[in-house]
């Protein structure tokens, strides 16, 4: 045992309790100013770190306390900022919606391209029934349409890349939510209360085209309109 330990300034010696009391007092001050860290948690963390500190509780040790306090404040502030970004909404609403919309684009462009190709194939058949000059003209135009329809493959591949990127973001957000779950839950309750108080009914009606599985047919709309008569 060295002299410093036996001198009672080590945290495991006689001054451990006053230090702990001082730390808790400071953390309580933080809590009173709106910080949400549980002082017991941070105390436990500090104790764990201090358990590895040897020698006198000098100015260096006190500085360490201050640094850890600052770190605690920084973490709390970061958590609050992350919560404000609403990662739960990003994961549960925005990302799935974006993915669905992109997949709908791929489906719609594929369907349209097939319709175009079908129509152009019919035109191409006519090319065999007319004179050579006209036939050449028709075939040339038809070829240009075939070439232009390349776009569906290219845009489809690009959109697939975006969907893959969104899925990666979803995984990261999931990890974030797992780390800050409680914070998010508290914020969600507050947010829903605020949203309920300020709901804009007209804005909520502007959602753009419905996804194919949610879309309502013209017949359904006509039936609905007729039901008002």
């Amino acid at each position, binding site marked *: 045992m060295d002299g410093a330990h036996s001198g009672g300034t080590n945290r495991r010696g006689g001054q451990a309790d006053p230090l702990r009391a001082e730390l808790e007092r400071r953390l309580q001050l933080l809590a009173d100013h709106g910080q949400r860290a549980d002082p017991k948690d941070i105390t436990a963390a500090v104790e764990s770190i201090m358990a590895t500190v040897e020698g006198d509780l000098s100015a260096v040790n006190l500085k360490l306390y201050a640094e850890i306090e600052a770190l605690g404040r920084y973490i709390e502030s970061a958590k609050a900022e992350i919560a404000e970004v609403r990662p739960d909404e990003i994961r549960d609403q925005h990302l799935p919606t974006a993915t669905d919309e992109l997949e709908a684009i791929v489906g719609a462009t*594929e369907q349209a*391209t*097939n319709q175009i*190709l079908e129509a152009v*194939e019919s035109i*191409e058949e006519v090319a065999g029934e007319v004179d050579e000059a006209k036939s050449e003209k028709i*075939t040339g135009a*038809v*070829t240009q349409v*075939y*070439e232009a*329809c*390349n*776009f*569906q*493959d*290219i845009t*489809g*591949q690009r959109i697939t890349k975006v969907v893959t990127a969104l899925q990666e973001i979803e995984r990261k957000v999931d990890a974030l939510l797992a780390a800050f779950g409680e914070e998010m839950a508290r914020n969600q309750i507050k947010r829903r209360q605020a949203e309920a108080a300020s709901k804009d009914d007209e804005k909520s009606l502007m959602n753009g085209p419905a996804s194919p599985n949610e879309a309502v047919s013209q017949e359904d709309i006509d039936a609905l309109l007729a039901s008002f008569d």
Partner: protein
Amino acid sequence: MAGVDFNMPILVVDDYKTMLRIIRNLLKQLGFNNVDEATDGSVALQKLRDKKYGLVISDWNMEPMSGLQLLKEVRADQRLNDLPFIMVTAESKSENVVAAKEAGVTNYIIKPFNAATLKTKLTAVIGQF
């Protein structure tokens, strides 16, 4: 020199059905009517082992078996290893082209492509027509 056999079976491989249709139609315009289709490398490989083809035109980016994997399987198969193989793909980085060349690709077309490019590449692979 023997002329080009317009009746030779050609296998077109792409996971986009619209692209299969476009390539089939362009080949038809060029006089090639004996065209089969496959939507990924593994289906294509089975077709190649079941029937004798004169040419493969394949996309790269497909699952579960990519065009590059298909090419490697073709080159590793004694009965298929001299089959002309054209890659038609949006993968335009030089490392892709190098990898395809090292795997034994016969020619390489970048998407989007036009009918003239397809004809030029076909001519380079199977001869003037």
